[in-house]
């Protein structure tokens, strides 16, 4: 899958995107693209601009500079990091799944089975476990028969054993439907093994590359089992710079600014 995707027209692509909120620069000249059948993992710490970048891709935030190009008619299935599931809102899993569009009971049961969520159609959304919720969110995204899946922190609050299962599920879905997958994660080092491209974001793109399909270390395998070890990979960052305490990029060796300083936009 990886390698030749760059020659094909991407499903969605951001070119040179910059976003400022007031005087604060949130994204600086960011490029990212997802092709059909490709899994791109966007990693970055909290506040790195990941959420803003996906909102730019969705067309919710208009970039100050740069463009977003989408394949015409592209359908996006989105699994957000959080949904409002306060018990004050009496919503069942079925009610949640049919918010986007009505669906028959059969298709709802099928999609829940496909994501391994079991018979929870009539359960209150506020009471499903964290792992179940991620599967329900994935099911809602799949109901749209998407060309591109965007999964924001699909593993938040999920234990390591289930993480492996969820990664395998996402890889299976990619293989079955051939959709592109954009996975957002705050974990800088452990990424999904099936990832084709890792994009490391810290306001600007720090580095991109392929994850090293390692984690073959016998101790790692014995600790988490072969399933997890096969599903998770270590991503070795190749940064030619580091960030100072204000988040500005500086070279790793001498500490003087590497690029024309953009800090004039910042407080």
């Amino acid at each position, binding site marked *: 899958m990886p390698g030749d995707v760059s020659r094909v027209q991407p499903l969605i692509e951001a070119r040179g995107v910059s976003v400022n909120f*007031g005087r604060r620069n949130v994204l600086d000249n960011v490029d990212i693209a997802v092709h059909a059948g490709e899994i791109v993992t966007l990693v970055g710490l909290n506040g790195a601009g990941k959420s803003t970048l996906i*909102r730019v891709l*969705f*067309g*919710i935030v208009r970039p100050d500079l740069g463009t977003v190009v989408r394949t015409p008619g592209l359908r*996006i299935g*989105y699994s*957000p990091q*959080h*949904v*409002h*599931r*306060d*018990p*004050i*809102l*009496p*919503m*069942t899993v079925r*009610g*949640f799944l049919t*918010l*986007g*569009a009505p669906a028959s009971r059969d298709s709802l049961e099928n999609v829940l089975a496909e994501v391994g969520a079991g*018979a929870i159609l*009539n*359960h*209150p959304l*506020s*009471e499903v476990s964290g792992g179940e919720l991620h599967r329900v969110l994935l099911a*809602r995204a799949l109901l*749209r028969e998407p060309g591109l899946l*965007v999964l924001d922190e699909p593993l938040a609050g999920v234990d390591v054993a289930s993480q492996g299962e969820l990664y395998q599920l996402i890889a299976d879905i990619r293989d079955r439907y051939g959709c592109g997958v954009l996975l957002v994660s705050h974990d800088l080092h452990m990424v999904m093994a099936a990832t084709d491209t890792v994009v490391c974001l810290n306001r600007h793109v720090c580095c991109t590359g392929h994850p090293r399909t390692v984690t073959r270390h016998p101790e790692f395998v014995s600790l988490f089992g072969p399933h997890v070890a096969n599903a998770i990979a270590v991503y070795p960052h190749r940064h030619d710079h580091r960030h100072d305490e204000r988040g500005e990029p500086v070279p790793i060796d001498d500490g003087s600014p590497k690029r024309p300083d953009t800090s004039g936009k910042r407080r």
Partner: protein
Amino acid sequence: MTEDFVLRALAGGIGAALAAGPVGCFIIWRRMAYFGTALAHAVLLGIALGFLLELEPFVGVFAMCFILAGCLILLERQRLVSLDALLGVLAHAVFAAGLVVISFMERLRVDLVGYLFGDILSVGAVDLWLIYATAAASIAALVWQWRNLLSVTVNRDLAAVEGVPVERVRFLLLLMLAGVIAVGMKIVGMLLVVALVIIPAAAARRVSATPEQMAVASAVIGIVAVIAGLFGSLEWDVPAGPAIVLVASVAFAASLLIPNRGRQGRED
């Protein structure tokens, strides 16, 4: 002996509760109770505005609530102060401004107490017309945009990705809230109007397993509170607005004794 003014009061109260309950569900689902309270503080300034422009008080209040909502949203985006502080400042600023402006209007014989605590027994034909037009418009808008409203409540970005016009839907909810405040103030008064919006909705939670049931139940509870509160106030000669809110509050307290219906289904 049921006098005409009692029947008009009853009809007006029922109409206001009909709209307030379902709109109130969205207010508590979206945690906008204090936002609603702040809007209600614009009532006096709205009445002054209506008087200056020679319009019905309803129109002035509706417009002023809506203007305040717009200011709150724009100011919140600046992130200069927290939303909590912003609501506290603006609510009392517009309330104070309303009191000052009305004191200048010597020709305006304002029944301040009536606006603060409601005057359900003075509901007239024009009021009834406005109340039922607002209720009909709110309910029609809720039915028409139900799925979109819920979608935006659960997750705004997910709704946007699925093609919901998020900003228009939020705008619609603000219009409905302003309308409900403008009719509700006649019934229970500015200081209690948000109670008419959120208490029946909160009381409806424990008897509802779906959002739709909760919207219907909140309207029913609001209507029962209006009827019981109104007759209670006539019977014991207490103010009607507070009596209505008190009945709704008792309904809410009683609802807490009911086991949560949201939990059924866990065993299947």
